[in-house]
């Protein structure tokens, strides 16, 4: 999830369309465009229409093994008293609300996995999360709008919000993911 655009061809070749990260541009002296074939940009009305879309929601329990591996990946020691490392707040809400990263990309009609840029992650933590506790997860689209960069390139700014609630009904955490769905198609077109 960063500013690179590519796609899989029907014969499963991985074709890079555009690398947009500043350091990549510097390395290549400009956009690394290899092909211009991209999916058409969806109408803005279709993007706005996803506001309010709710994921099914469900229960998510972080098992000890999952917290162990997750924490090891961060380079830290396990936290005390079965506390779950806060990095869980990326995938736990997504999977617990019964969606996936791929479905979230598809909801915004992403041109490819690589066409997504991260604007921000906002994690609010009201109570520490614990292993082996069954949390209720909810998630929905709270904002979706078309914008343009200063050079005219369009993108759709889509914001997802998730809640993590304890079994006693107390809100434990709220996360907000804001992604940019970059549109290579109709580049520079005003809409």
């Amino acid at each position, binding site marked *: 999830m960063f500013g690179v655009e590519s796609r899989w061809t029907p014969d499963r070749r991985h074709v890079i369309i555009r690398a947009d990260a500043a350091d990549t541009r510097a390395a290549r002296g400009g956009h*690394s465009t290899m092909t211009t074939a991209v999916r058409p940009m969806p109408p803005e009305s279709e993007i706005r229409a996803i506001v309010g879309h709710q994921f099914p929601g469900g229960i998510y329990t972080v098992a000890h093994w999952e917290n162990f591996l997750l924490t090891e990946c961060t380079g830290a020691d396990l936290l005390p008293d079965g506390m779950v490392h806060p*990095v869980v707040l*990326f995938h736990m809400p997504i999977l617990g609300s019964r969606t996936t990263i791929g479905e979230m990309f598809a909801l915004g009609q992403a041109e490819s996995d690589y066409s997504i840029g991260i604007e*921000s992650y906002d*994690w*609010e933590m009201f109570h520490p999360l614990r292993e082996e506790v069954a949390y209720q997860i909810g998630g929905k689209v709270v904002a979706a709008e078309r914008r343009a960069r200063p050079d005219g390139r369009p993108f759709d700014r889509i914001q997802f919000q998730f809640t993590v609630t304890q079994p006693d009904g107390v809100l434990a955490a709220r996360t907000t993911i804001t992604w940019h769905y970059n549109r290579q198609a109709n580049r520079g077109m005003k809409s």
Partner: protein
Amino acid sequence: MSVKAGDPIPEWLMESVRPERMRTMAAILRDPNPVHWDRSSCDALGYGKRTINQGPLGLSYMVNMLHAWAGPGSIKRLVMTFPKVVLDEDRIHARGTITAVREEDGVRLADCDIWLEREPGDRPLVGTATVVLPA
């Protein structure tokens, strides 16, 4: 803990970002993006044969810094942006400074600017945090 605006937060160092951790993370996240586990796909993007660290993993280095400083469970809020990517074998410092100390509902809080730094001035992740200060 006696702190004031302008104080630095003790840094936390990831000596070398390891590709095998990205692979484990990709499986846990169910993130199929090959840039996190296939060096050849990164090479095609101009990063050389180095995989790209997941955004949440970079964020976790700042969590570790804040936990080491203020204790586990102390973080109330993190807002993070991702101007650049972190690559495997990068040496990454998590750093921060206190911007304000305040009290809310009888709890002392510190607002902080936090970031990851590869080289002086090269900050792939930048954000803010609010942390409960220990007594």
